[in-house]
């Protein structure tokens, strides 16, 4: 309790409060612009956090993440263009309600459920993370190695598209992470004589390139230059809301729980959480035929889920240093940058600071209600900024932001190169999240692998001798073999079907 009080004192600082308010406004503005994701919003703000103290920087990033995820609901409901992928699951449903003149009801339910889901995720984070950290303190390099493997495997397995593409994207991230000093022997690797590469490719320019440049290129190529504009109405936002919330309380609770669990699985982020919650609400509903016609049932569950997933994703991110999705991967980058190296030790060495970060996330989710209300009321002004001005301005921000990290032009070139690679990957159907996760976890994976191998003197059995390491290894290997198992099951089923068909024909 003392730790929480000290954490609260850290947050009660004018600089922190100002950072949170500004981050909230920025997050709502970026998240509500179609095509600009929450990850991109955070990636763009990192150069600014670089110059702030750890508490305002991290409290700002937490606030920004929570707000940007909610803000994605605004263009989803009013324009049928989800602001972030996390809102895609129920954008159609919310838009149907807008067409029926019930935009306020859709947005009101989405707003309150986002806050409820977010608060649930934050409370889970505050309670579960220190408890898990105590267990994680017993982990040796073997357990850490398998955890990193499990995280990366899950990231490749649950990413969009075929798993081979997820795996290739992941390997690309691991390859990028190898540039620079080797973590064990300290030798230069893949630097090709460039001194700028000796410390590896800077994380922030890579992130900006990965998330912002493909969107700018898509705009330049002509996609998404047009879009109908609908004025937002904040009138009667809370009218009849209590009745809706009372009726949907179990759906909201289920969505929050699903979001937290899915968020904690590496690779599965807010978008997957929202899709799963929406689908489950439909399946469990007494009137599934009404889904898609403009009802609040799916919106309530899914919007609680996507906000709750961030809290869930932050648990493995802070305790093990394994990000749940690309957004938490960026947050891990900020934690490293601010000297709060994720891992169980952070709860011992920097307990006040990490709890202040968690509390800021809880407060940010409560603030979603007043800030979200203001955002809905002022959304028409965001829509008025033409993309022909907004997109070039974002490019300028990317250039200056990338330069600001190392004060080198090389960072700008890195950002551009990575952006082009990311665009090509996305166009080829390769997911970006595994590459980012590979980039973040890569050094930890290599270090724990080589340390474990040295400790075991090359004896691979040592990797699975400890009970927890063995359990993690079993889950990881099952995941590796799952495509083969699925293939064999399908083969057997097809053969049985063919035999049954032949039997039926011969009897006839």
């Amino acid at each position: 309790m003392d730790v929480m009080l000290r954490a609260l004192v850290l947050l009660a600082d004018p600089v922190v409060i100002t950072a949170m308010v500004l981050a909230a406004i920025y997050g709502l503005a970026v998240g509500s612009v179609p095509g600009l994701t929450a990850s991109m919003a955070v990636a763009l703000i990192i150069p600014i956090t670089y110059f702030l103290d750890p508490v305002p920087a991290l409290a700002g990033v937490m606030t920004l993440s929570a707000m940007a995820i909610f803000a994605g609901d605004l263009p989803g409901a009013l324009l049928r263009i989800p602001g972030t992928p996390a809102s895609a699951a129920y954008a159609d449903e919310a838009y149907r309600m807008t067409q029926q003149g019930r935009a306020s009801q859709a947005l009101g339910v989405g707003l309150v459920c986002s806050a409820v889901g977010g608060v649930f995720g934050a409370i889970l984070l505050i309670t579960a993370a220190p408890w898990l950290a105590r267990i994680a303190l017993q982990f040796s390099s073997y357990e850490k190695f398998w955890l990193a493997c499990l995280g990366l495997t899950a990231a490749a397995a649950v990413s969009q598209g075929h798993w081979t593409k997820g795996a290739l994207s992941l390997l690309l991230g691991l390859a990028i992470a190898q540039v620079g000093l080797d973590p064990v022997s300290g030798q230069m690797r893949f630097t090709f004589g460039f001194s700028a590469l000796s410390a590896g490719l800077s994380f922030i320019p890579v992130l900006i390139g990965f998330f912002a440049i493909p969107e700018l290129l898509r705009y330049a190529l002509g996609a998404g230059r047009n879009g109908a504009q609908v004025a937002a109405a904040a009138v009667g936002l809370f009218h009849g809301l209590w009745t809706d919330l009372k009726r949907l309380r179990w759906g909201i609770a289920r969505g929050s729980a699903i979001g937290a669990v899915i968020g904690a699985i590496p690779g599965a982020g807010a978008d997957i959480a929202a899709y799963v919650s929406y689908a489950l609400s439909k399946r469990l509903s007494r009137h599934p035929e009404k889904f898609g016609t403009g009802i609040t049932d799916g919106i309530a569950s899914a919007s609680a889920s996507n906000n709750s997933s961030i809290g869930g994703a932050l648990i493995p991110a802070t305790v093990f240093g394994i990000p749940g999705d690309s957004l938490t991967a960026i947050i891990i980058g900020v934690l490293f940058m601010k000297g709060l190296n994720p891992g169980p030790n952070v709860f011992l060495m920097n307990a006040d600071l990490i709890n202040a970060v968690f509390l800021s996330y809880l407060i940010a989710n409560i603030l979603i209600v007043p800030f979200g209300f203001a955002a809905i009321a002022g959304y028409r002004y965001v829509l008025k900024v033409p993309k022909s001005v907004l997109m070039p301005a974002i490019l300028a921000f990317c250039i200056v932001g990338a330069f600001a990290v190392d004060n080198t032009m090389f960072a700008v070139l890195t950002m551009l190169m990575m952006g082009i690679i990311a665009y090509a990957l996305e166009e080829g159907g390769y997911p970006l999240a595994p590459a980012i996760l590979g980039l973040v976890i890569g050094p930890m994976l290599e270090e724990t692998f080589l340390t474990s191998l040295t400790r075991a003197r090359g004896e691979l059995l040592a990797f699975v001798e400890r009970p927890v390491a063995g359990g993690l290894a079993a889950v990881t290997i099952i995941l590796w073999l799952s495509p083969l198992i699925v293939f064999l099951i399908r083969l057997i089923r097809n053969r049985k079907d063919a035999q049954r068909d032949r039997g039926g024909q011969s009897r006839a």
Partner: protein
Amino acid sequence: MVLGAALIVFAMPLETPRHIPYGPDLFPNIVGIGMIVFGLVAAIRAWTGADAAPGLRGERRFGLPVVAFLAVPLLFVAAAPALGYLIIMPLLLGGLIGLMRGRWISSLLIGTAIAFALQVLFQQLMRVPLPWGLLEPYAGVLTWM
């Protein structure tokens, strides 16, 4: 596959130090082999038509806007050290906005305003040393915070 092979080839010259049993080439080799194997699977899937790449979705044209969006960072890298941020960024940004909107004078003004706002945020407030270039002699006058 090519990238995987390149990783293995470029990892070859890396030597294992005497006191460490596993050298800096081990991990790149594992990743390289993984890339070759999964690349092969992806190539087979594409060749058999099991995994057709989505290709360009919607109506897209590779025209002047794409070239401009790619050229702006390159031109900034090439010209900013000599000309300075406060000269090159308003020109590049104004030019890009003008290209997208078709109205040049107002676009240059908007570009200049955005470039100055970024300069205030990054250089004046956060002390990022954006290049002064030709304006180096006036840096003291232009730094007001």
